């Protein structure tokens, strides 16, 4: 196979795996922001919490990686409910600035808490055998872990798509994103719906946090460093749009990977240049409402 084709396939493969991570972690943020117009800068903290729960479960308690991911995701989803009910809810009608400040405050507090308990040094997780090493796809070997990410991402996309487009609750969420007042007047309990989506979104973020450990390592600064990426995915995709978040995760994931492969020095520049370009042309993102 010619050299450039190998590079292209590698970029696409790694980019896709990266995109799946971005999608899984950001989709909850997108739906909650679309539903309540709430700028949640503590989303990265929920992802980080998930990551640390996975670290504790695998390292200290010796539970396998995949069950740990599930436990972490469910428990963070449950933990997030009181935050939504007692803190966030008070600020739905407040200004952007107040929401930014409250959630950045929460992010700082969580970073400090996790630094206190886990220290500032990056953590890793022990992977099961079948996720280590490479997988042969006929013409080239690919890392099994990234292949796992892509398969898991595809599965979650299918589940979310079905839930969003084909179930009663999904229809209610879409109705509430489109027109909250109208949805309330036809008897949809938007408050309850929002608590539910917030918990699911935070749970997915925790799953993303657990998956990220193998890719980037996990340190307490995760909550802020990767938060910027999640926010960018949401802004580029358009608030509250599943399709938009997926497209944005894919575009940004592949562009970022390509940038790092082809122009290592310019590394971080690409993803932001793409973001600015998209937002200048479409301020509400790919599928956002103008």
């Amino acid at each position, binding site marked *: 196979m010619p050299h450039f084709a190998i590079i292209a396939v590698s970029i696409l493969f790694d980019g896709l795996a990266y995109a799946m991570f971005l999608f899984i972690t950001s989709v909850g943020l997108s739906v909650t922001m679309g539903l309540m117009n709430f700028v949640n800068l503590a989303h990265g903290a929920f992802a980080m919490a998930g990551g640390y729960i996975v670290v504790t479960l695998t390292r200290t308690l010796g539970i396998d990686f995949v069950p740990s991911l599930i436990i972490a995701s469910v428990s963070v989803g449950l933990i997030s409910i009181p935050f939504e009910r007692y803190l966030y809810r008070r600020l739905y009608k407040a200004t952007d600035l107040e929401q930014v400040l409250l959630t950045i405050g929460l992010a700082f*507090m969580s970073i400090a808490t996790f630094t206190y308990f886990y220290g500032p040094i990056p953590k890793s997780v022990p992977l099961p055998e079948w996720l280590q090493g490479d997988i042969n796809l006929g013409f080239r070997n690919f890392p099994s872990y990234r292949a796992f990410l892509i398969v898991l991402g595809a599965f979650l996309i299918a589940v979310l798509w079905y839930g969003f487009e084909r179930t009663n609750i999904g229809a209610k969420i879409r109705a509430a994103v489109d027109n909250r007042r109208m949805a309330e007047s036809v008897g949809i309990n938007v408050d309850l719906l929002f608590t539910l989506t917030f918990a699911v979104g935070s749970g997915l973020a925790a799953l993303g946090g657990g998956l990220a450990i193998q890719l980037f390592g996990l340190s307490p600064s995760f909550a802020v460093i990767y938060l910027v990426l999640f*926010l960018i995915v949401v802004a580029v995709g358009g608030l509250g749009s599943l399709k938009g978040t997926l497209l944005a995760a894919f575009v940004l994931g592949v562009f970022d990977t390509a940038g790092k492969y082809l122009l290592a020095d310019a590394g971080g520049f690409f993803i*932001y240049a793409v973001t600015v370009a998209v937002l200048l042309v479409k301020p509400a993102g790919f599928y956002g409402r103008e």
Partner: protein
Amino acid sequence: MAASDTRSAARIEARERAAEYLVSRHRFRWPEALPWLIAIAAFFIFPDRMTFGGQVLIMVLFALSLDLILGYAGIVTLGHAAFFGIGAYTAGLLIARLGYSEPISTLFAAAAVAALIGFISGWFLLRYRGLTLLMLTLATAIMLQETGNLRSDISGGYDGLPGLTISPLFGKFDYDLYGHVNYLYVLGVLAVVFYLVRRIVYSPFGQALTGIRENVRRMHAIGSPVHRRLVTVYTIAAAIAGVAGALFTQTNAYVTLTVFDFDNSAKVMVMLILGGTGRLYGAFAGAVVYMVLEDYFSKLSPTFWQFGIGLLLVLAVLFARRGLLGLFEDAGRYFSMRKKP
């Protein structure tokens, strides 16, 4: 007849009172001298802490520039460190690459470059609001940082530009080890810039900005050139942040790419919120309280400090939305009301 007479009399009286308020509100009041007296007193009381004192005053200046756009015009930005960084690097590169180290003209150069970047980015970005604007301002700061990293042959990359020497002030006063000259220099610059900001805030232009913050649709409706006003104030604020950045480089004699960090943008915003937005002296109260607390607690435990500042933010949003100065005002009003009956 009689009824309409009293009504118009009341109306005239109300109008006169409003006019009186508008004419008098920009006048100097004695409590305003207090922060400046404290700053001068600090010079004599803590002679061995003047390097730190200079840092505090620089952050006051930086927070003041953010107050113009955030507090008065209501532009929420997550990338104000971009302009601080531009100013810091203008000063740093002038010395390290061109060998030009005269301090005061450097400040003007830093202000000009930062204003230019502020004008260009503001022209494009200030048409947007909400999340889009937050992301675009954040991306601007990070792109500048990455540009610096890309051309590390010029900028020195993440190692920065160390060991910069600054020419004596006015060709006479050399920078001493204890930062005495530097403190007075920064205080002088702060006083000049503060005077300008005060003029801007109380001018019709400042009134228009407040109008845009409170109700942008109505400002559009009465024909106010909203976009032009926002770009103007954004450019001015960028220039002031650039001056603060240049002072930062001159005070520390080094500069690294961390000046563009998100942390720096967040920090200055926290200071301003802590002090109170849209009230000129909020920047003073917030920056001083923040810097002193940070200096004390981060020595004890940086983790503890970070938790504390997070908690402070959450509490400020929930219970003290108008900042420390707002709290004082409320307390003052409470006590004066208790006294009356």
